[in-house]
């Protein structure tokens, strides 16, 4: 069995964090209310 070293675990944790952060930002964009635009008179 191949055991993960400390570097591997850190790299994996970083990968998970970036993926989660990506989901968080996408979710934020999807759920935030649309920006009101001023119509030209």
């Amino acid at each position, binding site marked *: 069995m191949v055991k993960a070293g400390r570097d591997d675990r850190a790299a994996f*944790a*970083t990968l*998970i*964090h*970036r993926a*989660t*952060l990506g*989901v*968080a*930002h996408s*979710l*934020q964009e999807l759920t935030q209310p649309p920006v009101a635009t001023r119509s030209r008179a």
Partner: protein
Amino acid sequence: MSSCPFEEHLTAYLDQQLPDLKRRQVEVHLASCASCGETEALLRKTLVAVGSLPVQEPSPNLKRAVISQLPEAPDRVGLWAGLRRAWQAPAVGLAAAAAVAVVVTTRAGQAGRLESGPGAGDAGSFLVAQHLDVLDDYEVLGLDSTDDVDLILTLHEVEAPEVEAP
């Protein structure tokens, strides 16, 4: 992306995967870093939202679809490779040979009947699909009857005899 070195630990912090020392360092840092505080709140909200979603079960074909896209591994153990290896142990080899002989005999006996009619290939494919959970670990090209499945099911029960030291 934040340039704060603590930011990349926030997901592990929320998942309670950090060692005690690092966890305490993150807690202290969160009290003074507004950027990490915002990110932590965003991640926490996301994890709650994702956690409330229903669990999606992968389709039965997903594993096969993923494996089919992987390059062939050099040490992949298929049915024939396993049998060749087993052949080197006398008792196992005998049992394996008997199993292969029965499979070949069964196929030979049914070949004319199945291949002469329409949909012969479909019947074999259907059997493979029906017993995919059993056959997944073997390289099986086709089955002609449920007897073949029974044989494959018992292959793993064949064990090599213990050899006594002289």
